């Protein structure tokens, strides 16, 4: 695949069309399918619990990485662009973890209010 940032592809329309480079794309596709299949394997063979949820979340992050890095091409962008996307998202994951544990606390305090 040609780099997005340069203009090496701005040749004239009369030029010959180069051959498609789709190897990386299909490889990414098979990784995504395999990860989803593994998720289903765990969903049906393992009892629900913290460990299974952790496995699901890790596999999801892997899938997200492949979609963002390869399909959205972020891996091949400038470093500054990569970080300006990753850092805000990392902060949001922090917020997510914080508020979910807050939810557990809220539940506990409601349930034990009259005890």
């Amino acid at each position: 695949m040609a780099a997005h940032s340069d203009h090496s592809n701005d040749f004239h329309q009369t030029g010959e069309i180069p051959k498609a480079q789709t190897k990386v794309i299909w490889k990414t596709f098979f990784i995504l399918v395999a990860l989803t299949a593994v998720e289903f394997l765990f969903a049906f063979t393992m009892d629900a619990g913290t460990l299974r949820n952790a496995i699901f979340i890790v596999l999801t992050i892997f899938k997200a990485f492949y979609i963002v890095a390869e399909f959205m091409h972020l891996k091949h962008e400038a470093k500054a662009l990569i970080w300006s996307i990753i850092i805000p998202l990392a902060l949001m994951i922090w917020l997510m973890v914080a508020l979910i544990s807050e939810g557990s606390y809220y539940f506990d305090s409601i349930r034990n209010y009259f005890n």
Partner: protein
Amino acid sequence: MSTSTTLEEPKTGTWDGGNEPLKASYGKLMMWFFLLSDAFTFGAFLIVYGLSRHSHLPYTGRPEDFQFSTEWWPIPEKVFNAFPGFHGVDLPLAFVALMTMILILSSVTMVLAVEAGHRMDKNDVQKWLLWTILFGGTFLGCQAWEWTHFITGTDEGMLMADGTRVFGANMVMNQYGPPLFANLFFFITGFHGFHVTVGWILLVIAFISTVNGVYHKRGHYEMVEKIGLYWHFVDLVWVFVFTFFYLI
């Protein structure tokens, strides 16, 4: 004072705006930052989902004995177990697996269209855009079916304390569990479905423009690339919705 107007020379100095630190075009950059803000919105939805779920009682009994109750949060496998054409058959998560596959496939055909655009291969762009439109439309159809089933409910419904039965789901009440469960289902999958619809319309516009040779005359297929970014983002959101709503 001179009154003649001269075309301003483009500034090329490092501190004159000639520098391009992110090495991406304006349009692509803005799409990235829009998607980042959109990720915040979806993140907020998933945060609310996690918080609501943790502030409800989980089901602690054996999964085989599971019954719908407003007392506890439902097990997703027991809610999403229907498949069109297999009425009454317990097929946990089968339909959502199909939907996931369709959306991942549409993402692949989208990236193939972008790749064809880099090569200025108009025919290939058309072909892959058409596949993406097809898969995207199929996904939307699947979601419509999923919603219909969720709203209509199962044959048994949920037995209430006063002996009546509740079937299906709405914003006030649902047979699957606490009212918040259905509300969040409608909001999260609905907001995602809305995004897919918008993306689908953009794809149709891009396809028409490609057929008319608009991008070819322009000399680049960056519009396809930008719509591609959006489309992959929609797929990305689904990956998270799928994990947090259907698996966990």
